């Protein structure tokens, strides 16, 4: 091996350690006592079963509802919008660039007015409010990404279908939809993970324990149970399962989907 190869592997491994150490420590702690142990392998303690007594399963259910419904609604709204921007020509199309810049606006700053809106709509302290706000902050990115996927489909395919007498709707469902399945996967996964992970919107828009989502529960545990790191890390590990599974299964598509815009830019 050349010196360069050795240096490359050395660097790769060092960064992997930096990335993995906190995760492995969290996993270790989730099987350890409440506090006060620094051994690499602490005496075993089951911190997972007591979580069910603390109502964790209903919070997981709330989180799943929020993440799934947000992902599905985002997709239903973003697909037609992405098709219009990616394929059709119309006056005002250039304002589509706003979709790239909306995600740069600070969500924190918009939460105060959004809470007052939700109160007026009677949606405050419901999962609907959490879903709507998650949708709003994911939609611009979803529409933009889908439009760039759709614009990369060769136009000839659609023209050929049109000549064969296919309607616009027929073209969309028979030609476009199958070809953008990668984009759809990327978006669904991205929105699911983002909505699953977020506690800010739920914190602002809900109060009652029965509409609590998982990340907010962990935050509440932090205050309530002090330094019960065993229980906190166990809850944290459970919260990691869906994003990590989704990511590992779909990461190849995901990486190309996410960076498609960067190279063009």
């Amino acid at each position: 091996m050349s010196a360069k190869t050795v240096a490359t592997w050395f660097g790769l491994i060092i960064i992997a350690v930096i990335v993995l150490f906190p995760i492995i420590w969290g996993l270790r702690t989730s099987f350890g006592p409440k506090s006060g142990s620094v051994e690499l392998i602490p005496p075993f303690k089951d911190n997972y079963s007591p979580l069910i007594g603390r109502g964790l399963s209903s919070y997981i259910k709330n989180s799943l509802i929020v993440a799934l419904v947000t992902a599905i609604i985002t997709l239903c709204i973003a697909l037609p919008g992405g098709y219009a921007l990616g394929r059709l020509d119309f006056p005002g199309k250039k304002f589509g660039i706003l979709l790239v810049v909306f995600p740069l606006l600070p969500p924190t700053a918009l939460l105060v007015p959004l809470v007052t809106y939700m109160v007026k709509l009677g949606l405050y302290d419901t999962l609907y409010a959490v879903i709507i706000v998650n949708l709003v902050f994911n939609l611009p990115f979803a529409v933009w990404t889908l439009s760039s996927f759709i614009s990369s489909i060769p136009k000839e395919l659609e023209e050929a279908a049109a000549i064969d007498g296919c309607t616009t709707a027929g073209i969309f469902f028979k030609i476009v939809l199958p070809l953008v399945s990668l984009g759809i996967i990327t978006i669904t996964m991205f929105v699911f993970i983002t909505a699953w992970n977020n506690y800010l919107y739920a914190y602002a828009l809900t109060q009652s324990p029965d509409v609590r989502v998982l990340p907010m529960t962990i935050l509440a545990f932090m205050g309530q149970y002090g330094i019960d790191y065993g229980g906190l890390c166990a809850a944290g590990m459970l919260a990691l399962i869906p994003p990590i599974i989704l990511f590992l299964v779909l990461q190849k598509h995901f990486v190309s989907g996410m960076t498609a815009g960067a190279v063009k830019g």
Partner: protein
Amino acid sequence: MHKHKLLPYLLLLPTIAVLAIFLIAPIVSAFIMSFQDIPFGEVIGFVGIKNYRVLVGQERFYKNVLYTLEYLGGNIAIALPLAYLAAILVSSKFRGTVIFRTIYLLPWIMAPVVTAVMFKSMLDPACGPIPVLLEKLTGNSYSFFTNPTLSMLTIIVHSAWRSFPILMLFIAAGIATIPKELYEAAAIDGAGPWKKFTNITFPLTLPQVFIALVLITAWTIPDCEGPFALTGGGPGRSTEVLALRLFKDAFINYNLASAATTGVILIIIGIAIVVAYLHILRGGGK
């Protein structure tokens, strides 16, 4: 073809409606609220620029701004070089680099509150491996959550650890577009690895570095999830960045006028970032 005239707008209608009602309108509302008196959530009336005067008159506000700049600067200083190094490493043509790229992306897909729990358990003065190890090495004790400097360092490192993966992806995408012939030509001219980096890789990835800079700035300034879960702004107010101040004003102390005013300041900063970003996209990065 005339049916196509309306079709694009119909297809975009749901998108436009959602964004107009829940994104554009709240921006306008935030501006209006920042000129109102809103004790306990009830709007009493317009008070002109009083909210801004109160805010700007506070020493706390200047500290919030200062801590935000420290948070941002520290984040950029750690995440960007780390992301660049990681991007170069995962771009090398070895078998196995894909596995490393997967590993490196993990922090980015994890919930901030979960990574905050991990960092807290790792930095706990009694049972955290980092303080215990540092104490063995230096003989001094390190209390990460009662020392203001160490607390700031903690929220910075946590945030940089979380955000470097996505920056790495963008930079690696830039590296992948560099034609191989350039490196071959440079090798024929006798250029070493460092020369190749300074003359080819770095200049050609500058657009992606700029995009990474804009993105990390846009994400770090309004970030309150990490700091709130890690330190809650403490000890004292030594890690109370502007976004966290807003969050506490709005949802813990119910000082909505102050929160809306801070929000407007964040929105203005956000728009400035947007303008910079558009400038880069429109060829500033060429």
